């Protein structure tokens, strides 16, 4: 067995009690989990917790999927793909005892939006300070801001019960689905008329329309609208984006438990903690174990065949890969119903975003709020910096993408992980993580090194307008296009949610109607990844819910 390489530089040894059970390598398991991303690990841990013998098969030499931290340049740790924790389910943190296994969620206290006129708009971590800041731009918005936050949090709270519900199939007459529908019905009935209308409106509106009802400051609207487009191939004026915006509010309603921030050691720290927990529960991990196909006998999944020809047998198999790999690559299509295959083929997985990870010799200095000295005490660098000066700015960025171009002036969400966790870079040096949208998967000219450079250049020249010294700070740069997300993390289309969070792709429609309960048309084959309900965002919920359904079925 290969030695497991933890998400690189995982210096987070569990505090105590990680007594690793001795596991014998064999080729007979209760369950095989395809994919060692956070959902695969969560599912494996839940199954092992129930006493099952589980193996996780990961294609890459490191565990974590799209939640990895890698030292691309020596000494500089990049949280390569996903970069913040916001939606990780509290019950997973508790059930898998993740704090004991090294999870530390550090505060990411602010959002700073530099404006085109040289000013800035910031949301700091203190409520009153933020209100005074918005007041500077618009007294009206300062007031609306409070009310807006409350309304959104209430709406998120209202739909939250659906997250942990197994989506029932509304067309089915089975007892399980009927009971499930009853639950949804009861839940809908529990909402006030106002809440119901609010949710209906949020579900269908564009984020631009929603925000224009509330605010007048462009930078405020732009920054808020940005969270409505993340991971979709839509613009802020596209209907349905208000829902995505709401999806991101979901993390803010768990009261004190709210786990929002930057994980110690980046996203690799999240998967590292889940990995430690899973291993402590006896889960076996195999890396560089790329699955070629699911083995099928008598209409049942009975194991997998690896690319290297090895066969591993199990009673059940769960895929934590994206829906297209899960159903179009791992399983021969003759085993699946035609309409199911067609639906999976039609599942929208258009990647629209990229990542630019930068190693810095010093911090870029934003002219709107310059730092003195070396910037070690610069408050804005401890939080996010958002290049989202207005809704029009983002919509224009989308215009480019619609016709297969990289946005000339993209939306960028930057954080400086080394300012939050000083261990991310050599002392006095820094790393910077830039989420960039739009970078369409289907680029008109196709992706190649030159286009990748274009994406990097679009990001740097955009930042340069607000932080003129950015170029002289750069020590090294990693540009990740949607094609690279597909190539490295194995996500078809490079969509960060394994499939867009569109209204026709959520709840009982995710990934396809009738198969939203983590089961598949193939007996013994389960699906528990971001492409399943309730979706992506390092939430872990699909993995957890799938494992629970598997245990319900028994094996």
């Amino acid at each position, binding site marked *: 067995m290969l030695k497991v390489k933890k998400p690189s530089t995982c210096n987070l040894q569990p505090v105590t009690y990680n007594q690793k059970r001795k596991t014998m390598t064999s080729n007979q398991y209760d369950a095989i989990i395809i994919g060692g991303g956070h959902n695969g690990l969560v599912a494996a841990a839940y199954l092992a917790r129930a006493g099952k013998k589980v193996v996780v098969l990961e294609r890459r030499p490191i565990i974590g999927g799209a939640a990895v931290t890698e030292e691309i340049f020596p000494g500089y740790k990049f949280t390569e793909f996903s970069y913040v924790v916001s939606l990780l389910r509290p019950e997973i943190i*508790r059930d898998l005892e993740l704090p004991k296994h090294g999870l530390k969620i550090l505060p990411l*206290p602010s959002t700073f939006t530099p404006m085109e006129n040289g000013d800035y708009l910031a949301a700091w971590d203190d409520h009153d300070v933020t209100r005074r800041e918005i007041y500077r731009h618009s007294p009206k918005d300062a007031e609306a801001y409070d009310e807006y936050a409350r309304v959104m949090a209430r709406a998120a709270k209202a739909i939250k019960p659906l997250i942990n519900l197994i989506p029932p199939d509304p067309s089915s007459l089975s007892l399980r689905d009927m009971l499930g529908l009853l639950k949804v019905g009861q839940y809908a009935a529990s909402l006030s008329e106002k809440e119901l209308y609010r949710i209906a409106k949020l579900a269908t509106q564009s984020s631009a329309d929603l925000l224009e009802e509330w605010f007048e400051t462009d930078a405020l609207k732009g920054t808020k609208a940005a969270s409505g487009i993340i991971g979709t191939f839509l613009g802020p004026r596209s209907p349905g984006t208000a829902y995505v915006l709401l999806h991101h509010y979901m993390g803010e309603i768990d*009261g*004190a*438990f709210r786990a929002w921030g930057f994980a*110690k050691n980046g996203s690799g720290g999240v998967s590292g903690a889940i990995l430690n927990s899973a291993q402590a529960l006896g889960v076996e991990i195999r890396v560089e174990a790329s699955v070629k196909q699911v083995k099928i006998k008598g209409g049942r999944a009975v194991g997998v065949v690896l690319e290297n020809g090895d066969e591993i047998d199990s009673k059940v198999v769960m895929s934590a890969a994206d829906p297209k790999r899960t159903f179009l690559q791992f399983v021969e299509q003759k085993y699946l119903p035609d309409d199911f295959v067609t639906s999976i083929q039609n599942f929208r997985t258009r990647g629209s975003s990229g990542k630019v990870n930068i190693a810095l010799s010093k911090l870029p200095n934003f002219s709107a709020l310059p730092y003195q000295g070396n910037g070690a005490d610069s408050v804005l660098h401890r939080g996010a910096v958002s290049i989202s000066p207005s809704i029009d700015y983002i919509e224009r960025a989308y215009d480019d993408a619609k016709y297969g171009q990289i946005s000339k002036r993209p939306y960028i969400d930057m954080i400086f992980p080394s300012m939050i966790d000083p261990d991310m870079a050599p002392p006095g040096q820094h790393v910077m993580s830039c989420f960039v949208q739009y970078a369409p998967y289907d680029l008109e000219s196709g992706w190649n090194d030159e286009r990748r450079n274009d994406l990097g250049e679009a990001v740097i020249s955009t930042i340069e307008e607000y932080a003129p010294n950015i170029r002289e700070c750069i020590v090294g740069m990693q540009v990740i296009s949607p094609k690279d997300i597909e190539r490295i993390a194995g996500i078809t289309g490079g969509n960060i949610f394994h499939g867009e969070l569109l209204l026709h792709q959520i709840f009982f429609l995710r990934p396809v109607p009738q198969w939203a309960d983590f089961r598949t048309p193939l007996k013994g084959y389960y699906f528990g990844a971001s492409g399943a309900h309730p979706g992506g965002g390092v939430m872990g919920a699909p993995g957890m819910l799938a494992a629970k359904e598997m245990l319900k079925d028994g094996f």
Partner: protein
Amino acid sequence: MLNLKTTPFHERTSALCQPQNWRKWAGYFAAGSYEHTLDREYWAIRNAAALIDVSPLMKYVITGKDAAALLHRVTTRDVYKMKTGQVAYTGWCDEDGKMIDDGTITRLDDSTFRLTAAEPNLRWLTMNAVGMDAAIQEVTDDVAALSFQGPNTRKILNLVAEESLDGLKYFRMMKNKIRGADVTISRTGYTGDLGYEIWMDAKDALKIWDALMSVGADYGIAPVGILAMDMARVEAGLFMLDVDYTSATHAWVESQKSSPFELGLDWTVALDKPGYFVGRRALEKEKREGSAWKMVGLAVDWVGMEKIFKRVGLPPQIPSMAVRGSLPILSGNPLSGGNVQVGYASTSTWSPLLKTYIALAHLQKPYYEIGTDVRMEITVEHHRQHAPAKVVKLPFYDPEWKRK
């Protein structure tokens, strides 16, 4: 007008203290926090380096041939066994074996000790020194102190101090120099993390603060106030005088007093040490007969809290900082009438690291056994409710690097 005193670091701390939320600490101004929210300060303790001005700690230097004998007599530790450079945490009691105060003893050399305390103890020490060759001097104002806590503190100190800290073990002290100034550095603290306390002449205070802050900047250093430290010390299972126990000298009634055993300090009571010490007989008796009370850790069950709050349509609401206030602890089934109070929590806090609502609680026998299920009073929308909780071992948080 007369006012509280300021510490030797005040020139720096007052410029940094954004919320200006000064607390009173033994007659001094102490910064509550430096920022409006405690997150960053708390995480500086747990993930980087926290610089805390602890100058208000009462400090005594005891010198003379009988210095060891005096401390041996007053405290519960075997002070004769202490070597130069050793630090010992201890409580001290009255004749009835009830705690008066607690602090650390440092053996600076053969006949010199430093004792820290929360409250003035000069009179008590002097009373016990009758006929001894031991001079007791209070040096609270002359010696400035910084508590430097967090996993990155050693790296920073190694860059600032003349001599390496690598060899300095847990609860040991070394003499060192920072920017040419003499300091003693002890590997001690009040957070349960890797950490040091730096003791210096008050006139060198600013120089040393500046050195640590400038070098520490690359390692995530942050000035930290006593509010964030309060959260960390609960996670570390460390109690505080006047919050978690009442000094025997202040108590109005007998039941307010606590013995070291009742506070979980068994390991500091050296009943096997030679000779008399204050409270010996009472403590021996309590050791034989068992303690009626014990301070333990409580972990409140989140799912249980959620259920209670859900009844009023809310997610659990918890104060964002440590609460110094008594909360009744109950046991028994409320439905079958066996609902009795078995103790109280004295400090409770949300632990951002453990993601658990925790408390230091004082429970009666036999409820203080690890694993016992009890319920802690919480207020939910102005109504008294009782959240399920479990007795757990202290400390709640004990990283391996604390001692390594």
